[in-house]
């Protein structure tokens, strides 16, 4: 199985999008340990903050890597089988003696290797950050290794297995995969501050993080006579400069906890095995689907002449009329956006859209709209990548003035869809007399569409935008001010934020145009 895993791993990591992911990872790993004067923290314990000794830096980095990578790592790796379907390599694999279990296990392990590569980089960055932020505490390697070993390594194994399971059972329904997965993650995050006993802390939590939260709260409660019951993870923005410092020396690892990590790894194996029992092995049902449709197909086939090959009489073709406008492009691009993915998603979209009409405006604007927009992630991520992925780029690039006509049409179609989805909020804001808010929303929507186009053109794939949009939505829902692309949070200088986004939009448009211009002549 080693050559399969190796080939799969190399195939995934030899891409621009992976390089960009690594660059983002380094930045994020650096931001896990904020400067003492920063206006955010990543582990918040109501008015207290740990001093930057080995234990604090190592553990915070370890748990942040576990949490963040659990969330966006799934998006990053959940297309291993899909790639084999798209490239039709799956058909070759299906004819080889490899068992379903071995094939899926190789996919799971290569998913795992990709995630471990990223975790390995954050591990190295955390050590560098420790020395960079240096507060004179001694460097203890174990405080860096153990949190990664006991938190990240088992949790990512389960993530890699869940990615395979999701692909087997939900196939192309990627949005449904995301919804179910993030719901599961939400449930697991609920364990972090659970009230279970100290002996069993973290055992039933795949992240294992409640062990750490218990230790930190107990430490503060004992030394400062407090009654804290929970700590929070994530990028938490508020003034933390006046927090009281405390020295925390790390965890004592119990055999029970370590054993539970092994059980979670075994659970990952079990998931893969269970999935292998239902794996399609690239043998898909015919498109006809229902018996009724099959019957219809057979009846039409019977009516058709068996052989009536190509025979075009050119003299009967009507005269040509030329129309170099972009309207027909916009129409088709919009049609493709609407038809992308499963049609049932429109039921969910419609439900959210109606809800946005009636819930309080601030909830609609700050929560429901970003969620509704994120649900379209797979539509927008295909905007500028579908030519290549469907091998239509030969036609597209050889078309008349593709840059001046096709690329703008793609952006316009994307923005029209975004505005259509945001219409209830836009109308409600307009009726409330907030013209500037309407501008902010349209500016933000354009930012999303242009990000999808630019990242798609730059990387040639959809993943980077999907991960970026996920992280952005996550940050928006957690009210991180700098990520407020729709302008739903109060800002001291809202106009500055919007001008920044407008500037980014212009830059994204220029990057897209220049890169596509190069690509169109260098096939």
């Amino acid at each position, binding site marked *: 199985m080693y050559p399969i895993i190796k080939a799969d791993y190399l195939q995934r990591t030899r891409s621009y999008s992976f390089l960009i992911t690594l660059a983002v990872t380094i930045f994020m790993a650096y931001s896990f340990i904020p400067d003492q004067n920063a206006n955010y923290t990543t582990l918040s314990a109501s008015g207290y903050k740990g001093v930057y000794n080995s234990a604090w830096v190592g553990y915070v980095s370890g748990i942040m890597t576990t949490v963040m990578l659990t969330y966006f790592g799934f998006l990053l790796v959940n297309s291993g089988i899909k790639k084999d379907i798209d490239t039709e390599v799956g058909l070759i694999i299906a004819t080889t003696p490899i068992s379903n279990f071995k094939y899926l296990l190789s996919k799971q392990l290569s998913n795992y290797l990709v995630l471990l590569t990223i975790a390995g980089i954050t591990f190295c960055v955390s050590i560098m950050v420790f020395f960079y932020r240096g507060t004179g505490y001694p460097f203890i390697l174990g405080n860096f290794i153990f949190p990664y070993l006991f938190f990240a390594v088992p949790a990512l194994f389960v993530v890699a297995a869940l990615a395979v399971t999701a692909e087997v059972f939900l196939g192309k329904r990627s949005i449904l995969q995301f919804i179910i997965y993030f719901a599961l993650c939400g449930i697991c995050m609920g364990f972090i501050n659970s009230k279970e006993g100290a002996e069993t802390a973290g055992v039933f939590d795949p992240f294992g993080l409640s062990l750490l939260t218990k230790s930190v709260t107990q430490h503060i409660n004992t030394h400062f006579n407090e009654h804290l019951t929970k700590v929070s993870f994530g990028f938490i923005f508020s003034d933390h400069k006046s927090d009281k410092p405390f020295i925390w020396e790390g965890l004592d690892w119990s055999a029970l906890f370590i054993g539970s990590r092994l059980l979670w790894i075994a659970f990952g194996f079990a998931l893969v095995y269970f999935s292998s029992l239902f794996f399609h092995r690239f043998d898909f049902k015919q498109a006809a689907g229902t018996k009724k449709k099959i019957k219809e197909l057979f009846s*039409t086939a019977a009516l058709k002449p068996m*052989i009536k*090959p*190509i025979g075009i*009489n050119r003299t009967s073709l009507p005269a040509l009329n030329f129309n170099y406008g972009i309207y027909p492009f916009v129409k088709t691009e919009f049609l493709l956006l609407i038809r992308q993915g499963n049609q049932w998603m429109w039921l969910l979209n419609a439900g959210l859209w109606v809800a946005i009409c009636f819930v309080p405006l601030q909830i609609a604007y700050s929560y429901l709209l970003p969620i509704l927009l994120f649900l379209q992630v797979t539509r927008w991520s295909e905007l500028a990548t579908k030519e290549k992925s469907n091998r239509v780029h*030969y036609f597209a690039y050889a078309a008349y003035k593709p840059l001046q006509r096709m690329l703008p049409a793609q952006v316009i179609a994307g923005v029209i869809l975004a505005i259509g989805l945001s219409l209830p909020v836009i109308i409600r804001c307009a009726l409330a007399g907030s013209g500037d808010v309407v501008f902010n929303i349209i500016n933000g929507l354009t930012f999303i569409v242009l990000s999808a186009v630019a990242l798609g053109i730059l990387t040639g794939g959809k993943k980077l935008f999907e991960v970026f949009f996920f992280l952005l939505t996550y940050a928006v829902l957690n009210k991180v001010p700098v990520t407020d692309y729709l302008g739903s949070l109060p800002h001291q200088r809202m106009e500055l934020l919007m001008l920044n986004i407008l500037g980014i939009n212009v830059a994204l448009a220029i990057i897209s145009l220049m890169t596509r211009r190069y690509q169109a002549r260098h096939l």
Partner: protein
Amino acid sequence: MALSITNLSKQYNVQKTAVSNLSLHINKGVLGLLGPNGAGKSTLMKMIATISIPSSGTILLEGIDIVQNPNFIRKVLGYLPQDFGVYPNLNAYEFLEYIAAMKGLGGTGLRQRIDLLLEGVNLTADAKRPIGTYSGGMKQRIGIAQALLNDPKVLIFDEPTVGLDPEERMRFRQLIADLAQDSIIILSSHIVSDIESIADEVAIMQEGKLITHAPQYEIIKQAEGKIFEVLLDNNDLNAFKHHYKVIDTARQADKVKTRYISTAQAAAPLSAQVTATLEDAYLLLTQTH
């Protein structure tokens, strides 16, 4: 209308030269492009189709440099790439409408034009079905229809007969003959018999270079007197291959009818000289060049 290619080269990197110093003058009619895999045929076609910029050299259409002015040829270009795809969620009609928009076509006649083209490639009954459900041959016919949408004056077909059944291939050849009356058609195929029955002129490429470019009969003439057939015992075939370049074999009872090239040395005993075909000439030129 004429297409003039002068000293054209495409170098991907220091080691990889796809097309090397190629010059070719193409008039109305069908130019068949032959060559082994990796000879540079598809790269040459991509450069003419303006989706790949040459490293050096010029391509002129009616005296206009299409490397500098790609939109000049794009208005009159029909291009069927070797490994093209489709949007699986669109039906045939919608897909052709989309390609028509790319080509800048519109107006009231477009719908009728698409209808007639779909009828011509026998896809009318399936026109409302998503193309994702089509067979390989049906997709190839959609590819042919899109190439003809704008009544092109320059047609580039890269392996156009892949996936077509024998009768469809025959009809396709008739279509090409019709189009060749007022268009430049450049057609590459691994099936030499397709080229033989369609092409007025043939260009053979190897390792990025043009070996020969001439009317078909002149190329075949180069193989005249060098092609022989002989009946061999099964056991003698391998030894025979050490001495002669075998083109083809056919089982006949306990013997093997062997077609081979004999250039420098004398033909084998009991051999009969046969009329050369384009395939014989192609193999002779690519093996001995």
